[in-house]
């Protein structure tokens, strides 16, 4: 059991929980996540996965990890009702992280909605490694941009898009991405957000001939690699076949070019046998 050090609102829409978890904070890398057990009765049993928003290792024995989330259903509602000093059951850090580029210098972070969460931690690490960091956040409306003031501080260039025009460009991230890449001299893209958005971001990145690291989201039964609930379809290295790969421990960060994006649409249409498990 870990302990909640702080619970605050982040803007109007998001909650932030800072959790004292020294071992997790020490080991954590950007793009990894933690699996929290909401304090509910037996009606909602499963853990909820959350990207690591930030770590604070200065506290030593009190080193913390911070997660940011919005209320979606019973699990996040129960977490949002938790208070300072309450115990919380946390597993982590889990998964493969984003990787810091060896040769490239100019990095663009592209976050859709709450998907921007893991990109703050990444941005800090990239800066610590001496890289240039630019940010492009998109959301439905201004209040759904994650920590926009901190994002402005993080990015050499920081741009926003909203579906309703309440902040920044009125429209989608993908409408301004090309322009951003040119303006910032982007050499690597890191993205997290809705699947459709990440598919489009990957496509544009490839058109510019630059790599995209994407952080995928899937429903997770266990979050520790044993149940096979969370798979992402990934092309094998020679492009001859697709394997269903566990998002929790083999991801959540993948090379965008390797993801079989059009499989999702096809599979939705496919009928299935009445098999179990």
């Amino acid at each position: 059991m870990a302990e909640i050090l702080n619970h605050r609102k982040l803007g109007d829409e998001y909650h932030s929980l800072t959790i004292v978890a020294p071992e997790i904070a020490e080991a954590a890398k950007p793009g990894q996540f933690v699996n929290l057990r909401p304090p509910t009765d037996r009606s909602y049993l499963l853990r909820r996965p959350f990207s690591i928003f930030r770590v604070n290792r200065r506290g030593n024995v009190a080193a913390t990890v911070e997660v940011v989330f919005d209320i979606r259903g019973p699990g996040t509602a129960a977490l949002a009702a938790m208070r300072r000093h309450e115990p919380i059951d946390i597993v982590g850090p889990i998964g493969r992280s984003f990787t810091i580029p060896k040769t490239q210098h100019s990095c663009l972070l592209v976050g859709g909605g709450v998907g921007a969460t893991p990109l703050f931690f990444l941005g800090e690490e990239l800066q610590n490694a001496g890289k240039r960091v630019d940010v492009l956040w998109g959301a439905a409306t201004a209040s759904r941009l994650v920590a926009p003031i901190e994002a402005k501080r993080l990015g050499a260039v920081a741009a926003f898009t909203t579906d309703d025009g309440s902040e920044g460009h009125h429209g989608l991230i993908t409408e301004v991405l090309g322009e951003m890449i040119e303006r910032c001299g982007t050499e690597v893209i890191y993205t997290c957000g809705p699947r459709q958005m990440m598919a489009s971001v990957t496509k544009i990145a490839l058109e510019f001939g630059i790599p995209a690291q994407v952080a995928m989201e899937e429903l997770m039964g266990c979050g520790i690699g044993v149940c096979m609930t969370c798979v992402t379809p990934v092309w094998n290295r020679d492009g001859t076949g697709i394997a269903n790969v566990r998002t929790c421990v083999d991801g959540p960060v993948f090379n965008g070019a390797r993801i079989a994006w059009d499989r999702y649409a096809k599979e939705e249409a496919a009928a299935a046998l009445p098999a179990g498990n």
Partner: protein
Amino acid sequence: MPRVDLSVDLGGMKLRSPLVTASGCFASGREMSEFIDLKKLGAIVVKSMTLKPWAGKATPRMAETSSGMLNAIGLQNKGVDHFLSTDLPWLTEQKVPVIASIAGNTTQEFMQVAERLRSAPIHAVEVNISCPNLEDRNNMFAHDPQSTSAVISAVRRMVDVPIFAKLSPNVTSLTAIAGAALEAGAAGLSLINTVMAMSIDVDSAMPKVAGVVGGLSGPAIKPIAVRAVFEVHQAYPHVPIIGMGGVMDARDVIEFVLAGASAVALGTVNFINPKAGHEILSDLGQFLSSRKVGSLAAMRGQVKVEG
């Protein structure tokens, strides 16, 4: 605290703990070994394996439901040869009994998987007959006494270790299927596999899992599982049973044992608490000693019913 004996006899296998793993909820143990000492488990029942690798179903593969989860994984696994070359050597080093769960879509396929396991260092085979039978209009083997019998006797011819037939609760007469499995050579029974179920997203009018229907697990199904174990134990009191379905804590384990389980498998609880295998074992010891019961095995089938 007086010493309590938590070891059990499972069809001739002496297990140091009554807790085993439910197939598909523990993979082959490697990931879980970061959380618990596998040696403390009675046995590891690995994810069902098939002759060739299976890719499984499309996503979404899971939906959370009241006190449970619905899954439609589609038996994604890397195949028996991968198990033999990669998982089993590692498991053998862990010094914990291994029960290989096998699956297939035809009797022939079950037989071929079993044949590959013939000389492998495993302690038992669990036959997951909750699979669609391609030769019988995709009816599950476990839903038909003839198909059940055919698969179990085919596997029986291939391996010498004890065979456990894993039965589906989605049948009219569980004891009839259990009888068919035992007659065909099963040494014991595993009860229950998931309960066939469905969830629909009301906003999109789409099924919540891509497989349309799936299998329900977790506390939601525990009363169904306890009934199944009770019914089968009453009919075949000398047959070893691995009971499972919704076990979350030590009291649940006791409940299964009272109903007639010889050992109890932990499934979905591993997802919620990866240390469950340890914590429940230690709670079991405390439960028994606080009630001055010396041995868990002595509680088997001791539910007090008239008649």
